């Protein structure tokens, strides 16, 4: 079986992981338009080549980032999400509409 290196648990069978899709910058949900939100939600680069993606080690529910070549099926590297996301992102709740 293909082996993926979990930054927390070490090398494991790929069947222990779940693919989470591309790492995409999330727009501020309170400020963005419906259209931009839908684009962030649904549109994919779906690159044939090297991609940066979310993966989850299911037994520990640990989410991390993997760089992978989608043509050769090689996992290039894996690292904790904290290497990319350095600080907590807080979103202000959207103001209630006055009726």
């Amino acid at each position, binding site marked *: 079986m*293909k082996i993926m290196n979990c930054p927390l648990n070490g090398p494991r069978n*790929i069947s222990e992981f779940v693919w989470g899709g591309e790492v995409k910058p999330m727009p501020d949900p309170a400020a963005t338009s419906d259209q931009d939100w839908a684009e962030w939600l649904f549109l994919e680069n779906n690159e044939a080549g090297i991609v940066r993606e979310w993966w989850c080690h299911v037994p520990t529910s640990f989410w991390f980032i993997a760089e992978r070549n*989608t043509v050769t099926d090689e996992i290039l590297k894996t690292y904790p999400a904290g290497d990319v996301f350095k600080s907590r992102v807080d979103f202000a709740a959207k103001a209630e509409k006055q009726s």
Partner: protein
Amino acid sequence: MIPAFVPLKILRYGFRKKYPAERFIPPAKDLKKSYDVVIIGGGGHALACAYYLAHTHGITNVCVLERGYLAGGNTARNTAIIRSNYLTPEGVRFYEQSLKLYREFSQELDFNILYSERGHFTLAHTDAAVRTSRWRAEVNKQLGVNSELIYPDEIARLCPHLNMSDKVRYPIMGALYHPPGSIARHDAVAWAYARGAAKLGVEIHQQTPVTKILVENGTVKGVETPRGTVYANRVMQAVAGNTSMVAKMAGFRLPIRTIPLQACVSVPLKPFLDQIVVSGSLHVYVSQSSRGELVMGGSTDPYGLYSTRSTLDFKEGLLGHMLELLPMLGEVKVLRQWAGMTDMTPDFSPIMGLTPVKNYYIDSGWGTWGFKATPVCGMTMAHTIANDSPHDLIKPFYLDRFVEYAQVGEKGAASVGH
């Protein structure tokens, strides 16, 4: 004993001029400078579209550009199942039209596609699956599709080989039975459309990749290939698997992930399995081809990939479940394995019709449900191109449904859980 002169007779027969081998497609000519319509991709969908453009709409100045060889992608890699027992009214109407076209196919195109009506069983192993089957049966019947929820006694009568024991992990609790479910020879479908289109004047160019799509002021002008630039009034892409990469050349993104789908066949066996059997919980579908091979598939791979490699994990999982359904296959061997690259969409429905680029059309989002839609895709896309307006049957599958939050949720009818 074969008499000694028989081989000679066969040889003589072979050299006679009376029965020349039929050439389906005329030899390739040089590419012209321009066409009315250029179709990117040379699979079943593209060839069907070319055929209906010429046949129904009289547009014959059409060029099909195929990177590799004809029908060498997903047309050659599916498991050839045809059915219309979907979950959403939009889906049912669309696939039902396809099924009708398939029934008349061999007659209309004068080409035997070995269309074989088998009866399609979607097994339910949980209360939730029984409920979804009931829901699908009612939607189907409402739209005139022959579909019914049946229970173990009837399943055992119709399909006596299935293991109906309750001493397995997922006992069979019911099934959605769809008598018109069929199989056909997939290559023949593409060849028939290719021949039909070529007879009407469509040019088919294999070994001709599109390397660039020319767009000016938001309107497509043509495509570049290693054999030269080709101008066109209208361009369509039908390249499941590579959809996102081709769309990127045209300048837009899609809600599609490219994920491999693997399948395999067993050694040929005497005909014993008349039906098509699918189990969502067990991630299995199986039918017996006219050659006697069991054609087996399962769910898509667990992650995206532009590759048609096969894995042992997939077969271990698939065959373990196969043995739960049909334990007598324990000694049977796998003969061939392969994979295709599917276009998975978030709502398990296709993406068809107009695009953000004027005069550029798309036939995509063919996750694991593309073969059965081949005729109706050709018919509706030809209509869409000829009129620059989407055919009624494909209106719900427009690209902008995602940004308008108007998806067509077909997950409950994907043949196996994905």
